[in-house]
């Protein structure tokens, strides 16, 4: 089965496994197994790096880059913005990267990738290019370069690992930090503790507005969906954007064993919509399988602890629930059986 039919299959099939919701590779044929399940996977981000235990970003990057390596026959170059991913993978003189990798600055990964892609074209090479960075490097300081890369439709897949804050510098607020979340610069103090409601932006939607060939959101809770989206993106030319929700145990104040669970709950409560868009139109969204109140997601994380003091829910929980409800409606996140 080639990669595009594999992707199609994965859109069609629904895998169920009791308990964890992870797809058991044992249940499917060899050809349908995930890239990560294969002994042949490139291990592009190999072991030995310095990420915290349970780091969603490390996990997401490994899934994504291995899938892209598979899709391109290992003919791939990665450009990395400054941030946790860059720092924990390349403490000089060591590196975890098994593919050509370049780190220039915090805010220019998209433009550097444009340059790398231009060099491939002029040299007549088929090598493909990925740029990657955290939410800060993408939605804030790198946003101008990102928008420029989109607008020119440069042949780059940009992957944003969204852990909802500046983690590398000690967990400060970014424009991807959710309302009410406590960070070092939005402390849980005063009459409006945590991040302020009505601020922030959701860059996937802005990417869609650029009309680029492909935009998707994904989560480390759904490995197959993530791999399929990366593989699909590598089958397309032009500017592409994938934003992956990657829980950060340190920044979110959660146990490292809850990374996958939190990623799953963020989707199941509707706070993190998972969808795909092509050429400016949303083409499909991933349906919520078992809807949960946002409270169940928030209460597991210390960054929201101020919402649950003294056994009483802060009214902000209801405001966050309203955001989830709006996402569910806007992105059509409920399947027919759930609606």
């Amino acid at each position: 089965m080639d990669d595009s039919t594999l992707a199609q299959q994965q859109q069609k099939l629904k895998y169920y496994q009791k308990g964890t919701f992870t797809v058991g590779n044992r249940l499917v044929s060899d050809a349908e197994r995930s890239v990560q399940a294969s002994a042949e996977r490139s291990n592009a981000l190999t072991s030995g790096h310095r990420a915290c235990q349970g780091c969603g970003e490390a996990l997401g990057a490994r899934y994504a880059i291995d899938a892209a390596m598979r899709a391109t026959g290992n003919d791939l170059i990665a450009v990395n913005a400054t941030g946790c991913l860059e720092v924990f993978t390349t403490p000089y003189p060591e590196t975890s990267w098994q593919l050509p990798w370049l780190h220039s600055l915090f805010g220019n990964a998209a433009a550097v990738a444009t340059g790398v892609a231009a060099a491939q074209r002029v040299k007549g090479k088929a090598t493909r290019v990925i740029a990657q960075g955290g939410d800060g490097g993408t939605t804030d300081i790198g946003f101008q370069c990102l928008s420029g890369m989109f607008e020119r439709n440069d042949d780059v897949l940009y992957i944003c690992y969204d852990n909802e804050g500046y983690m590398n510098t000690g967990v400060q607020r970014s424009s991807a930090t959710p309302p009410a979340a406590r960070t070092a610069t939005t402390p849980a103090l005063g009459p409006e503790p945590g991040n302020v409601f009505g601020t922030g932006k959701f860059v996937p939607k802005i990417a869609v507005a650029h009309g680029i060939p492909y935009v998707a959101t994904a989560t480390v809770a759904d490995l197959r969906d993530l791999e399929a989206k990366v593989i699909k993106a590598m089958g397309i030319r032009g500017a592409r954007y994938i934003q992956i929700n990657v829980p950060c145990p340190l920044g979110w104040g959660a146990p490292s064993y809850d990374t996958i669970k939190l990623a799953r709950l963020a989707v199941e409560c509707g706070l993190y919509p998972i969808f795909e868009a092509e050429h400016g139109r949303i083409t499909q969204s991933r349906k919520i399988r078992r809807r949960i109140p946002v409270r169940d997601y928030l209460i597991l994380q210390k960054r929201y602890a101020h919402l649950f003091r003294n056994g009483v829910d802060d009214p902000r929980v209801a405001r966050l629930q309203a955001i989830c409800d709006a996402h569910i409606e806007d992105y059509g996140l409920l399947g027919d059986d759930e609606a």
Partner: protein
Amino acid sequence: MLKQVEGSHAVAEAIALCRPEVICAYPITPQTHIVEGVGELVKSGALQNCEFINVESEFAALSVAIGASAAGARAYTATASQGLLFMAEAVYNAAGLGLPIVMTLGNRAIGAPINIWNDHSDAMSMRDAGWMQLFAENNQEAVDLHIIAFRLAEELSMPVMVCVDGFILTHAFERVDIPEQAQVDAFLPPYDPVQVLDPDNPASIGAMVGPEAFTEVRFLAHYKQRQALRLIPALSDDFAKIFGRASGGLLRAYRTEDAETIVVAMGSVVGTIKDVVDELRDEGQKIGVVTLVSYRPFPVEALRDILKTAKHVVVIEKSVSVGLGGPLADNTDGALRNLDNRPLLHSAIAGLGGRPITRASLKRLFHDAVHAPWEGPFFLDLNERVVGREIHRVRKVRRSGATAENILRQLALASHLPQE
């Protein structure tokens, strides 16, 4: 081929002859005609095998060049003034990564107050970034220095900034000898990178370096620029053999052999200074001028050798390190530091924001250097009346307003009043 062309156009043609593979730039006066020129050559097909990328900022322009260069392509960009500052972080990064990018700087003042005219503030702001910085005296040299720059950059794996005075050179129509493609090809071999992003040989570039190695990395950058002190004259000799004319080098001395007063300057102002030197020589004064072509690396020894027998050294420069004085004067002072009988150094700041540097003012300046020497930096042709009034007014009035606007108002008033 001899042509009567605009400086920018001549530079564009020189760039094309160097067979760049990726060009990216963002418009800013007075650099625009250069990138428009190269853009035209790419679009028309005259320059083949080259990607011309219109980016959204100077920061992106240099970042694209960084990516292209790291991927093994010969990369070029151009900017000026605010644009150079906007890309500042990438300027340091390109040097730190050792990427042989060539950039033209159409020298222009930096705001506020915003000013599009020529001075060297922009180049000076990046003098410590790790780029080599070469200054052109005229448009022929602007053309030649770009060709030399690519070779220099690629031999040392270090970026080069070619500084061309905004308007005075970029917009001047002069006779320029545009080299033949075969000559440039003979001088400049294809780019063979020392490190490259290559899936067959994957390497990580741009790793995090801590205190255990950072000093060594910095030392080696400095060491490379010291090597350039030997390489730049050698390339200039090579250039002369192939192109049949002398160009580049670290510095050039003009009538300095027996000179008691030696002027030090960079860029297009040297043309005017040479005229003044000739005039004063005719009057019997022993005066000469040194043109610094290479500001980084700074040719300490070569400069000292020329200046050491002089009695007076006059440094004229188009920039000011606010709170200190002239950076070029300061560097020149450093070159003279350990001489036994060191000449007296006189620092003059001139031509800021495009103010013309006239022969009359220079003559007065050189006379005063010997007969009425001043302390510290001297601002040539400073309108002392206007400055005095403004200082007085600011002392009297708390809400005194913005300096630039106040001075313009004063000048406008003064033009309607009888002069004292």
